[in-house]
């Protein structure tokens, strides 16, 4: 397969996944902002979303105040913000457009009509119709893309690069959500009372609330939330689950110079496979997650260099 084709497929799936995770996070933040709380606490949650995406500067250039409406506008519909849902859906479609011959008709039509519909939605329309409906729509469209991919695409190299993109992006996004939310919820790492609603919201943002109940059948504790999202083998949005898939798909596309990337992926996976939450918390969750995200970035870089268009050239 052409390196450029693989590159487009990889980024196409990353952008869809990113749009979905962003919709999940915004949705939960929106819902919890409706629960009675201080204005300061509410705005802190919104600020966390900007921090999560390292967009403080771009945000400050456009808006002076951090509040729900501004952050939603910036992260949902802002055409200039390359990380907004609008931009992610556009970029997913642009990448798909460049390789539409490699996609199945169903996949292409799903991505194309997602973008055509998104393009028609102004921020005001989205808010008037209920922003929750919009997030639901983004999640459904993402599920539809994933579904048509799994249900119609030949499971060859194209499929493996799409899965690599999806899983790598999801690992990064889950780590970011956990990092920022954990920090907001336990700024001093104190062992005080935990806020059921806030932790519930964090779990819901990664579709983990029901999973948590099923796995632990117990009250929500921060340690277990971290354990579920980092180390659980079967939770589809956990870091371990994602890395397991990354290793598997990398093996399937391996070429003569991908050994080092394979080794790095295997190393990272084995930490998740054999790690314990106590040890991770001992290092400090923030420190551990920062290191994890750096290594995910390096993995992406390695994949680009070995198979795709090196990121330095692509820019």
């Amino acid at each position, binding site marked *: 397969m052409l390196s450029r084709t693989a590159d487009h497929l990889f980024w196409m799936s990353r952008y869809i996944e990113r749009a979905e995770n962003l919709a999940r996070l915004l949705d939960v933040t929106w819902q919890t902002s409706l629960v009675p709380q201080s204005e300061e606490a509410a705005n802190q949650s919104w600020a966390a979303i900007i921090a999560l995406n390292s967009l403080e500067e771009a945000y400050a250039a456009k808006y002076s105040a951090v509040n729900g409406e501004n952050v939603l506008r910036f992260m949902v519909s802002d055409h200039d913000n390359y990380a907004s849902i609008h931009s992610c859906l556009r970029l997913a479609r642009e990448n798909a457009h460049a390789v539409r*011959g*490699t996609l199945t008709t169903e996949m292409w039509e799903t991505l194309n009509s997602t973008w055509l519909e998104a393009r028609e939605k102004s921020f005001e329309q989205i808010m008037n119709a209920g922003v929750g409906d919009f997030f639901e729509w983004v999640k459904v469209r993402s599920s539809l893309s994933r579904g048509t991919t799994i249900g119609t695409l030949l499971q060859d190299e194209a499929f493996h690069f799409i899965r690599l993109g999806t899983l790598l992006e999801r690992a990064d996004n889950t780590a970011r959500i956990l990092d920022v939310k954990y920090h907001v919820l336990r700024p001093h790492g104190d062992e005080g009372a935990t806020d059921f609603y806030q932790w519930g919201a964090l779990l819901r943002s990664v579709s983990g609330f029901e999973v948590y109940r099923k796995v632990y059948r117990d009250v929500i504790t921060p340690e277990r939330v971290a354990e579920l999202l980092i180390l659980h083998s079967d939770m589809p949005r956990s870091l371990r689950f994602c890395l397991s898939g990354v290793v598997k798909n990398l093996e399937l596309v391996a070429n003569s110079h991908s050994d080092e990337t394979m080794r790095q992926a295997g190393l990272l996976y084995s930490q998740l496979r054999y790690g314990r939450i106590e040890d991770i918390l001992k290092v400090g969750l923030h420190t551990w997650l920062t290191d994890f995200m750096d290594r995910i970035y390096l993995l992406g870089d390695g994949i680009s260099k070995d198979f795709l268009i090196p990121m330095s050239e692509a820019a």
Partner: protein
Amino acid sequence: MNFYNEMYDANGGVREHYKGYETWLAATPAERIERKRAEADLAFHRVGITFAVYGEEAGKERLIPFDVIPRIIPSKEWKALQSGMRQRVTALNMFLWDIYHDQEILKAGKIPAEQVLNNAQYRPVMQGIDVPGGIYAHIAGVDIVRAGEGEFYVLEDNLRVPSGVSYMLEDRKMMMRLFPELFAKHKVAPVQHYPDMLLEKLRAVAPQGIADPTVVVLTPGAYNSAYFEHSFLAQQMGVELVEGRDLFVKNDTVYMRTTQGPQRVDVIYRRIDDDFMDPLVFRADSALGVPGILKAYQAGNVTLSNAIGTGVADDKSIYPYVPDMIRFYLGEEPTLNNVPTYMCRKKDDLAYVLDHLAELVVKEVHGAGGYGMLVGPASTKEQIEHFRQLLIAKPDGYIAQPTLALSNCPTFVEEGIAPRHLDLRPFVLSSGKCVNMVPGGLTRVALTKGSLVVNSSQGGGTKDTWVLED
């Protein structure tokens, strides 16, 4: 002016080959057709069968309007057209071989040598190169119109990178989807095997000694107006769609960058003009091409389809000589008509053209796509005066032809069904001794009342083209 109507004869009777369709149309409620038309629009949008228009907002895509009334050609007429095109394209390929080898036709004085050798489309780098099978234009799009009492004329031979075949295929698919019952009633010759035929031709012209050639389609990229077609053809043939940056040349051999390392490429169906193919030889500012590809081509390690330098045969200044080429190379009389052409570089012709601008169509010799032309009868005084100045300033840049009374065909327009002018572009495929085409082509229709310009860039639409089997 009286126009030949494809559906009705001069007395208003329905032509034999349209009878079945006309009966169906009369019996079908207008709302049903309206619904189907809306369905077609929606489907074309969703599938993304669009084209980009140069000069409009970057990345903006438009639909080419699709008309649901088919253009029907009876078997007998098609057979005549087919043998005429076969003859014509064969002669054009022989002309190209000759021009790039011994130039017998110039020596024989059939065509003034300077017309060929000073033509910007003549590529000296091709001199003496033996292309596989002696074929230069593997894919030719011959533009045919019907005029006067119904006789066919060749308006133009497109031998560089003719486009539109994807619309021929998609229009058929759409018609079959919207009105399957019509296909049960009519014996419409199938066209869907075009991509197979194309792949077979491309494989057949691979460099010698390559048993299982790797074929690719080379596109300028996703923002090109015909990108949909490039990706469509690559997908239908099951070959890679590459851009210039995906290819590189090493030891005069072309490779593509793949996830498993470099892979050799043997045949390139290129949808990029000569000028952009190799920045080392042609335009140095081209980012679309592949540095060094011309040397690999000259070394015979890769086949370009179409060959470099075919433009010298489809240039409008060469067009008037095609009938002579047919006589010279094949010893036959041409069976398809050429449109009488005034070559403005000739003093007498220029004088005549300047006197009759209001009646003539004036075309730029190197123009294409319906840009840079004057349709006298449809132009204002200012436009005509503007062209007069252009002609006087650069007479050898133009040719002129009588304004043909292009045939028309009933077409859905805002006010209902009305006649609109149309043309036909069949796609002729050549390799070695064999010249083939699928029965049909792209019918383009000028949707503006009275307009004779059918190009999609000028607001033209398309129709499904039916060749009826006996």
